[in-house]
């Protein structure tokens, strides 16, 4: 159990960071391409502004990812032995194709703008962005295989042996999960960028960089949020087909009967096998999940008690995700409507709401991962390998101590990281925005620190 908590803590911290880098890397690539295409300085300013944030986030993502790569062995040794032949190569490909690509070109992206040509620098930025997407591809392939396993054979000693790699990678839930996750990353970053822009617009409505950021973010919201709702719906149908217990848990349905209602709110109780204080809409559940009026969704009682996921968590996490998703779409529509009336930058109400929704995407993302991960319990490989058969033969005190150490270190490290990011974002984007202030050799080659830069943050051992 503690091993699970430890894994949940590390993955919970970790998952936000790749989502941030996936979204932000693509955004940076778009900004730089636009700069090269149009030559407008404001694109470069916004690029430089977010590049500094990216550097901090990426560093944290690398190290927390390193942690993940080894935790499979330390905490889930039996799982690694049994599933390694299938999941291992997928992760191996992630390292080979994505990890190296990102970290190889990150140095050039961050520090090399004056050392390589403009086009080469754009290529480096794009390679980093592509690397993050490839990374998502492999990791989600591995995760999806664990949710909907296929293309394997079982050896006599209970190990999973790969039979058909094509089937393993393109397992049934993979395309849906990949699309859902990548869009979620884009949306999360869009709302983060939008909120930062809203914050600065409140103080200076004429700041060109802030206006650009706000405009781009609201375009993303209106276009992407509805797509995400559709993608989520498709993903849900797919889950119903392959992991009906998960759907039953997230809907809070206990009994199977035609015309399943949609429970809006309630409190599922695992002991009494019912959902208390339920507010229901008749037939709507059937309509959404089977697209028919009288369709039936299998309830949790259809599954043996030992095979049921813990419904209260799944139920509420799902509602948080969906609620935020619709809220984001609504904000996007509102912004689009204001835009047509030419009041996009002028509405304090919109700015306030967008600012308040800064973490909305990330909260939705975490809630979504909670749904999918808690929803597949009590299995690690769905229907085949139980979580209790996956853990390491490591003593409980050991896991407890390391869990405590990890929590403390993560709180310090990511707390400080958050602080630094917030400090970077506190400062408005300026004309002639500088790159990451690292006191690097390139400084000598001509980049001068922008005057707007908080003075103590630049290297104080410098010429000045």
């Amino acid at each position, binding site marked *: 159990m503690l091993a699970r908590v430890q894994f949940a803590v590390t993955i919970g911290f970790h998952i936000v960071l790749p989502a941030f880098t996936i979204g932000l890397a693509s955004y940076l690539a778009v900004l730089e391409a636009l700069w090269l295409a149009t030559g407008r300085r404001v694109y470069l300013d916004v690029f430089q502004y977010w590049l500094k944030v990216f*550097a901090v986030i990426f560093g944290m993502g690398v190290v927390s990812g390193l942690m993940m790569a080894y935790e499979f062995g330390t905490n889930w040794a039996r799982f690694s032995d049994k599933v390694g032949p299938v999941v291992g190569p997928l992760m191996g490909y992630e390292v080979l194709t994505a990890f190296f690509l990102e970290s190889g070109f990150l140095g050039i992206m961050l520090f090399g703008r004056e050392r390589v040509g403009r086009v080469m620098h754009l290529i480096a930025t794009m390679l980093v962005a592509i690397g993050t997407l490839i990374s998502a591809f492999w990791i989600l392939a591995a995760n999806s295989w664990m949710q909907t396993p296929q293309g394997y054979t079982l050896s006599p000693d209970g190990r999973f042996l790969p039979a058909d790699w094509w089937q393993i990678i393109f397992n049934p839930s993979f395309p849906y999960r990949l699309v859902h996750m990548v869009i979620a990353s884009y949306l999360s970053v869009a709302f983060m960028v939008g909120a930062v822009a809203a914050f600065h617009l409140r103080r200076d409505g004429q700041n060109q960089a802030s206006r650009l950021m706000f405009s781009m973010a609201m375009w993303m919201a209106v276009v992407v949020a509805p797509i995400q709702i559709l993608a989520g719906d498709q993903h849900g149908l797919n889950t119903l087909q392959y992991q009906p217990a998960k759907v039953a848990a997230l809907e809070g349905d206990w009994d199977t009967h035609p015309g399943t209602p949609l429970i809006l709110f309630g409190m599922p109780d695992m002991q009494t096998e019912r959902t208390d204080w339920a507010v229901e809409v008749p037939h709507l559940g059937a309509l959404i999940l089977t697209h028919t009026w009288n369709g039936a969704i299998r309830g949790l009682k259809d599954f043996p008690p030992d095979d049921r996921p813990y419904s209260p968590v799944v139920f509420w996490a799902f509602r948080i995700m969906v609620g935020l998703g619709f809220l984001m779409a609504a904000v996007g529509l509102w912004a689009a409507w204001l835009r047509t009336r030419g009041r996009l930058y002028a509405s304090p109400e919109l700015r306030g709401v967008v600012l308040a929704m800064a973490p909305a995407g990330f909260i939705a993302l975490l809630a979504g991962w909670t749904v999918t991960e808690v929803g597949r319990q009590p299995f690690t490989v769905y229907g085949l390998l139980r979580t209790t058969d996956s853990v390491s033969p490591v003593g409980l005190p050991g896991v407890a101590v390391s869990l405590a150490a990890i929590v403390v270190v993560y709180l310090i490290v990511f707390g400080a990281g958050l602080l630094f990011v917030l400090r970077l974002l506190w400062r408005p984007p300026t004309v002639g925005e500088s790159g990451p202030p690292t006191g690097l050799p390139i400084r000598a080659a001509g980049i001068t620190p922008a005057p707007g830069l908080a003075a103590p943050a630049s290297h104080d051992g410098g010429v000045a």
Partner: protein
Amino acid sequence: MMLTLVWAGLIAFAVLAYVLLDGFDLGVGILFAVERREADRDVMLSSIAPMWDGNETWLVLGGGGLLAVFPLAYAVILPALYPAIIAMLLALVFRGVSFEFRFRAASLRGRLWWDAAFMVGSTIAAFCQGLVLGGLLQGIHVENRVYAGGWWDWLTGFSVVCGVAVVVGYALQGACWLIWRTDAALQFRCRRHARALAIATLGFIVVVSLWTPMLNPLFMQRWFGWPGILLTSPVPILVALVGWVFWRGLAWRGHLTPLLCVQAWFALCYAGLAISLWPMIVPPGRGTGQPGITIWDAAAPPSSQMFLLVGAVVLIPIILGYTCYAYWVFRGKVQPGLFYD
């Protein structure tokens, strides 16, 4: 058969690449202990900032590759060395973020705090890597495909000596890296550091090399028995030869020679390690009377190996290619003039 052999070679290569590449940047962190001026520290960090990410990725490849191709070894080694590995990872977390955070610290105190985190993190990471090496070499008790030893098995006199040895060795790598990438006073001091550290490193190489065969009769047989000695005797001779070149390089104020020599030392020690272990990937625990786990025992089914090998054969040369490109982009001495006050 062949496939497993190729993979054993590839993973060994990934780990060696990690030791040679991340070794010097961890070493630079360790040297923060003696280089206390902020201006010097700026230069030291600048010399490794664009590279450390890529360097550390080799460790991820080592871990990921082990899981993919030798899942049994992965599932046994990591629980056996659990505390050392978790400590190493946490140390790497600290040190990794210190890079960025240091430059963002608002006050001198904050900056010194992250400097300390960088130094301590680098040192602990290096020390734990030595512990892991020692813990593996002395053997791991396995029953029914799972680790069957105790919580503190990895902590012995031998593993602690290995830990200190790695710290000293990495510091030497770091000093030699700085000789190459810096000039003037910092470079001068690094030559001095390198001299002292080289003597200490040689001492540790001798101690660990003599201690290792005593851990396990298999190693003893391999190193001093016939025909193993044919293979093993060139190793110490080459170490001595490289040592001589190193000394001359240092005396003649070579810039790159010391680093290359130290890397050769590490590669030779690594080869010695491979000779001891082969064909085992996990040597047996002392007094358990069990055979160790060989690479054949630990191997994943051929289809897993083949699937990943296709990618590795295509991608590793590409990775090496753009790693070289990145090093080339950031070539030359780090401009220290700007940073001196």
